[in-house]
């Protein structure tokens, strides 16, 4: 194993779990929020402003002893469309894939239109994904860009 590999492992070597890599720094805590990490009892390591060859700086999250369904992990694509999921089994990466934006976002994002029914009624929000940077409210039809996204 290379020296750099050892340095990373010194932070936290996962025996089993998930590593979420290539999170844009400003989106790190939004990802924490989307996945509900603050309520987890698993071992969690959160790193931010780590140097990255491809991104300059990045955020990274390691969650021990967990198996999250793809649909749950894909929710973070709303704020981190290029995040990479590594599934770790017995210290080895057994699966590695980029998150994929679903076609519809249910109850993840709040509508930015204060006059939208979804902000005035106890109900779930629903957005149609137009592309990775634009989402359209199913109810009021307002188009919200990724930069404007407010999590529910």
């Amino acid at each position: 194993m290379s020296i750099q590999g050892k340095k990373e492992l010194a932070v936290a070597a996962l025996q089993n779990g998930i590593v979420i890599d290539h999170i844009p720094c400003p989106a790190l805590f939004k990802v924490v929020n989307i996945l509900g990490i603050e309520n987890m009892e698993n071992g969690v390591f959160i790193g931010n402003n780590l140097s990255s060859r491809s991104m300059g700086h990045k955020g990274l999250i390691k969650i021990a002893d967990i198996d999250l369904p793809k649909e749950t992990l894909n929710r973070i694509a709303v704020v981190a469309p290029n995040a990479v999921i590594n599934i770790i089994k017995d210290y080895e990466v057994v699966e590695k894939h980029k998150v994929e934006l679903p076609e519809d976002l249910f109850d993840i994002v709040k509508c930015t239109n204060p006059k939208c029914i979804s902000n005035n009624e106890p109900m779930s929000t629903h957005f149609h994904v137009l592309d990775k940077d634009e989402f359209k409210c199913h109810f009021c039809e307002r188009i919200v860009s990724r930069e404007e996204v407010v999590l529910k």
Partner: protein
Amino acid sequence: MQNRNLVSISDLTKDEILALLRRAKEFEKNPNQHILDGKVVGSLFFEPSTRTRLSFETAVNRLGGRVIGFSDARTSSQSKGETLKDTIMMVANYADLIVMRHPLEGAARYASEISKVPIVNAGDGSNQHPSQTMLDLYTIYQTQGTLDNLTITMVGDLKYGRTVHSLLEAMHYFNPKFIFVACDELKMPQQYKDYCKELGIEYEETRDFSEDVINKTDILYMTRVQRERFSDLMEYERVKNIYTLTASMLKGCKPNLRVLHPLPRVTEIAQDVDDTPQAYYFEQALNGLYTREAIICRALGL
């Protein structure tokens, strides 16, 4: 069950639009038909809109149905803090169809997803008002004999005016050409210009409400410039008078040109236009009755 709600004009295919227009034509010939005998229609106006409500309720009455409901949220239990969901669930127990107007955008879409009876949107905030668009289409068809290949000039508030946005979307099936006439503050949003570009719809944009523009127009669609849209009232006073249509401006127009307006109008159409053969906005309002009769029958599968 077939989806028979009418929430947004973009829910309708070209064939569905044409079928509604054919049905409306039947009702124009004979508006009184006993199609809704024994049916009850809920007319829920969470904000007042006398014109739209009377038009829908007249449509139900002329078809022999009965109306229940309210014309102002203050007289409903919404004033007691009831959610929209609870109101819809309750009325859906009593009525065969719900016609609703609501100040919040997306209210009708949400209602259509929780209601067991069809929902017809009679306006949700500044979002959609599909029965207005249908009556505009019917009027265009009635006055031009076709919907195809027309030049439609839209004047006034093209930024906030939902009627022009919906009309633009509905007309995309019929190879239109648009001319957008507005001041910089109220010009057509980029989103709709991109929409035209994507679909290869030809359009021009101008600040100048000139006879040149009018003379190449088939349908002149006027809208009201609302004072509350302006932060600078001086600007409003200036703009309001620039985008006023007078009878003399119609001197060189094409013989088939008709002037439409969703009403209420204020100063954007001078009173002297009313006496020209081009004025058609009052007939347009009457067409609301026939198209709403058609919309109600479609919603009930009748």
